[in-house]
């Protein structure tokens, strides 16, 4: 299983890395746009939010399969601590789970909060189409004003042994960039900023979710690989220990038999 995970990891890691430029560029453009927007008060709701923060929607993205070490439980742990923080502040909580493992673990404690469970068990690799499905659901709910703030939980792939659970707020979009990163270019927009933003923001949500999916699938394989590597090593150690024990007890039996024969012969 380690070998299988290693092979899959390569592919997942590749696509995670290849997917990064798109989401980064998209983010950049949106940041530039939101800077340039003329009328901040009438900005699209997806950017500015509903003005409240009472109802939180959390999208917890996990894998569909187990045997991958702490991968799922890390996300769940992060999500749970966020949930309890929310409830201590008296906020309302709604959960969408992506991936069946997260649903399994969360429904015991937060079963009544889960409003949707999405699983892509049948599709092998993360693809953009799936991400669009998820984002469509989210945007629909947002337009019906079912929540005010949306946060996604996923594991960011750092390397094979480190995956960092992340909480990223996607609605309203956070635009807290450092001043030095701000570009001073004046863009020309066609059509105007507001219209571009209205079209772009839903797309950005799909992109962010897709990015999360890619990071997640790379992380999953990485976590599985190291978990299975550990398991193989532990099993190997156990085999060594048991072999020694087996040899010892066999030797003990032989010795005992020899002693019996010798002492029998001596007594004659």
């Amino acid at each position: 299983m380690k070998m299988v995970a290693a092979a899959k990891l390569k592919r997942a890691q590749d696509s995670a890395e290849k997917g990064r430029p798109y989401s980064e560029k998209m983010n950049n453009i949106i940041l530039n746009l939101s800077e340039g927007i003329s009328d901040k008060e009438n900005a699209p709701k997806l950017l500015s939010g509903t003005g409240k923060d009472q109802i939180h929607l959390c999208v917890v993205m996990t894998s569909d399969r187990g045997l991958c070490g702490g991968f799922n439980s890390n996300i769940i742990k992060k999500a749970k601590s966020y949930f309890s923080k929310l409830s201590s502040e008296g906020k309302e909580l709604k959960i969408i789970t992506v991936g069946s493992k997260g649903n399994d673990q969360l429904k015991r404690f937060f079963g009544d909060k889960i409003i949707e469970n999405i699983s892509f068990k049948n599709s092998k690799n993360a693809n953009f189409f799936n991400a669009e499905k998820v984002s469509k659901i989210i945007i629909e709910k947002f337009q019906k004003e079912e929540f005010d703030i949306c946060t996604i939980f996923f594991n960011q792939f750092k390397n094979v042994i480190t995956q960092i659970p992340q909480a990223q707020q996607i609605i309203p979009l956070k635009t807290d960039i450092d001043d030095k990163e701000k570009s001073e270019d004046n863009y020309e927009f066609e059509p105007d900023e507001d219209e571009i933003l209205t079209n772009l923001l839903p797309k950005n949500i799909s992109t962010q979710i897709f990015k999360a999916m890619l990071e997640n699938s790379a992380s999953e394989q990485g976590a599985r690989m190291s978990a299975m590597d550990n398991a193989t090593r532990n099993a190997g150690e156990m085999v060594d220990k048991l072999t020694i024990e087996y040899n010892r007890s066999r030797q003990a039996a032989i010795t005992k038999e020899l002693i019996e024969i010798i002492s029998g012969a001596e007594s004659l």
Partner: protein
Amino acid sequence: MSEEFKLEVVNPEKSFLSKEDVTEVVVPAFEGEMGILKDHISIISFLKPGMIKIYSKLGEEKYYVEDGIIEFKNNNLSILTSSIFNIKDMEKSKIDEMLRVAEKETAKDNISDQAKYLIDQKIEVLRNIN
């Protein structure tokens, strides 16, 4: 003085195309076709279904896109799109299929004017390719 600039086409899965030596790119911007040459002013725009034409020393390349965003800055043109196809690789059967889906879509009466406009555009472009 060279008349070339950099072009990068990215889709969500990977960097689709990257070229250092394009001389002109024509994109189907939302409000009409737009030709971009070197030293164009910084611009952000988004695309409607149509053809991207890329001109370089080697000649002309054509791509079909359904949507996307373009950003031009410091002689770097980035095109972000989730659906792009090289015209050469598009088979007739596939185009027919796409046409059929689009025609079905436009026949619905509950779509917004903007959506209808986009789909009509798409149908027109696809018919032209055919």
